[in-house]
């Protein structure tokens, strides 16, 4: 367990980093019988990388050999890179020792496909089984589902893992087939549907018999690459909305395309990953899941791509100015959620506090509402201020954008030298 393991770890952790899923939440797995570990339902980040992402799990590939040649993947068959494979016991030992030192919440295990999907999935499930059964480990386990693996293996995986996921990567089937000819939507959706049904069935079982074993209690997730194909934000978000509603997915992750495999002419020549667009997609995702927006309201045929300059909620408000201003003291919770500058927390506090007193802008500021934005869209128990209907949406947009520019100008380094009055 020395130099060889360190080298394997460097290669197989580096290979796994393009799968951005990082959550360790959603599973309330207690420790039983003086075993090792438990899963905290809210998830815990143990560290943060220099690119700003949280490190919660030990994210590894079991092997980075692969029989497929997907254009967007750094581990594709035709790339000449260092390849290696972990043994089952190596992964188990790394997980346990890191867990004991509180470095991680658990394990995230992916793999390149070797021999065939069943063979690959069998070995991954073995790692999870060893952890649970041999080592009495109750921490978090996230297993990738291999598209094409048998139903029985998918189900076995769910018995040991807290979360299962299979990555769609490309939002539309024709583009997926162009970049990854070995894959298609069916081979990815089938395991998703099987697992979804098993989760529903298992929830029923546990309602009747508390001692029924858990099945993937933290649900499923998936990943979509952003910017590798000309798919619009509407296509991406429509697919995501569908997955949340019909496949009961817990999370969809959006990963800005990191320019790998630049020799492949099917891929766009990007100078850098589209991080701003990725950020807007996450904001849109939040609007769908927490702010009760429909996908149609965020992006549609008239407005198929998200505005890069302003966030999706402000964009919606400026495109629908007739909905405002709303009266803070009378509007419903749903309506308050639509006001730029009012988040879920502030909306809840407003609804609860106004039972006691009529709220003023002073109260709103203390509650945490961003008045700089909200002031154009609300009325309060006070003198009337100009709102988005008196000033035009274009003017509001300019005002809010220039605010950001002013802050940037203020923080920029001084380019001139102060002249001295005295020689």
């Amino acid at each position, binding site marked *: 367990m020395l130099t060889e393991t*360190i080298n394997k*770890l460097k290669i197989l952790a580096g290979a796994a980093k393009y799968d951005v899923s990082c959550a360790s939440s959603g599973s309330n797995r207690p420790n039983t019988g003086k075993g*090792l570990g438990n899963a905290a339902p809210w998830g815990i980040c143990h560290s943060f*990388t220099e690119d700003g992402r949280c490190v919660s799990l*030990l994210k590894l590939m079991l092997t980075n050999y692969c029989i497929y040649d997907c254009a967007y993947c750094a581990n594709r068959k035709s790339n000449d890179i260092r390849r290696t494979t972990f043994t089952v016991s190596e992964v188990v030992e790394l997980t346990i020792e890191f867990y004991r030192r509180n470095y991680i919440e658990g394990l995230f295990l992916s793999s390149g496909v070797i021999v065939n999907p069943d063979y690959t999935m069998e070995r991954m499930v073995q790692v999870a089984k060893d952890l649970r059964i041999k080592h009495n480990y109750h921490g978090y386990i996230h297993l990738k589902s291999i598209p094409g693996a048998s139903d029985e293996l998918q189900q076995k995986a769910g018995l040991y893992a807290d979360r299962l996921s299979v990555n769609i990567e490309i939002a539309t089937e024709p583009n997926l087939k162009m970049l990854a000819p070995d894959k298609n939507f069916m081979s990815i959706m089938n395991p998703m549907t099987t697992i979804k049904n098993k989760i529903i069935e298992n929830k029923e079982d546990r309602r009747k018999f508390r001692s029924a074993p858990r099945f993937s209690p933290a649900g499923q997730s998936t990943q979509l690459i952003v910017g590798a194909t000309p798919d619009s934000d509407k296509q991406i978000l429509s697919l995501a909305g569908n997955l949340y509603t019909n496949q009961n997915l817990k999370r969809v992750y959006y990963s800005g395309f990191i320019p790998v495999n630049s020799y492949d002419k099917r891929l766009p020549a990007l100078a850098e990953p589209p991080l701003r667009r990725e950020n807007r997609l996450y904001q849109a995702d939040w609007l769908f899941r927490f702010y009760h927006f429909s996908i149609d309201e965020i992006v549609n045929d008239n407005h198929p791509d998200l505005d890069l300059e302003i966030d999706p909620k402000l964009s919606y408000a400026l495109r629908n100015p007739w909905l405002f201003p709303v009266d803070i003291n009378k509007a419903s919770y749903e309506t308050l959620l639509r006001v730029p500058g009012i988040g879920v927390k502030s909306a809840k506090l407003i609804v609860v506090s106004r039972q006691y007193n009529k709220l003023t802008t002073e109260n709103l500021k203390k*509650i945490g509402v961003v008045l700089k934005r909200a002031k154009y869209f609300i009325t309060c128990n006070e003198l009337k201020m100009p709102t988005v209907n008196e000033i035009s949406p274009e003017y509001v947009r300019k005002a809010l954008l220039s605010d950001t520019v002013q802050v940037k100008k203020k923080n920029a380094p001084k380019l001139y030298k102060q002249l001295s009055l005295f020689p």
Partner: protein
Amino acid sequence: MNLFIYDQSFEGLLSSIHDALETGIVPDKIVSTRLYQDDLFATKFDIATDLEKSEKLWNMVRTKSSKQNCERIYTAFLSELPEIELVIYNYIKLIINMPYNTEADFSNDYVIKINAIYRKVSREAQRILMFVRFQKTVDDIFYASHDPQYNVLPLAVKHFKNRFADQKWVIFDTRRRFGYYYDLNDVREITISNKKISFETGKIDKEIMHVSEKLFQNLWQNYYNAINIKERKNLKVHMQFLPKRFWKYLPEKDLIKNGQIENSIVTVG
């Protein structure tokens, strides 16, 4: 000005508040005996900690508001902020005197203040769960130190007892010089006088380190380095999430400081 002096315990504070509310004397300052400085012009009231009185007041607060609110007040007390006693006095007075439950009235300044402090302390408590890193000693005890801004270590003990039920561990608050030891059965409060454990760096000496410890720290450093995506570098966000004051506890940050780890390639920038 009215000066209340109590013994720094939570029950002592509740006794002071009980006395203040019962007698109608409004304290201008509530201070612990440790921090008390003599003031010629103040009327001093030495409060005797009375468990019955504090229990009675606490029950009133619970029935008037909620069990959750009680947790909120106690957590705010752990902040050890100066003047926290007066903030709690004003908050409890509000809760007791209003005919209905005001814990959710965010148009009230005291409610906002208590919740803000509660959030700060909770976040610091969560940080213990996040950034504690155990080091394995030769006697198979997993040792970790931490110096939280607020006195939140007692809040974290239950989590570690449940999670690491099959290994002996110690977590030590180097700022307040006390800690907890789990011996596979119970958790006990302890102090440490072992010269081989540094209170500044939080690290244990090589002599008492388990033979495998350096290897696993090394593996972790290599892992941390390998998962960084350089094309997405964002140090501003990184510093927001991982303030420098925690770096001394994280082996992965050692990589940047020392720049010299066996069997690994160091990449800078």
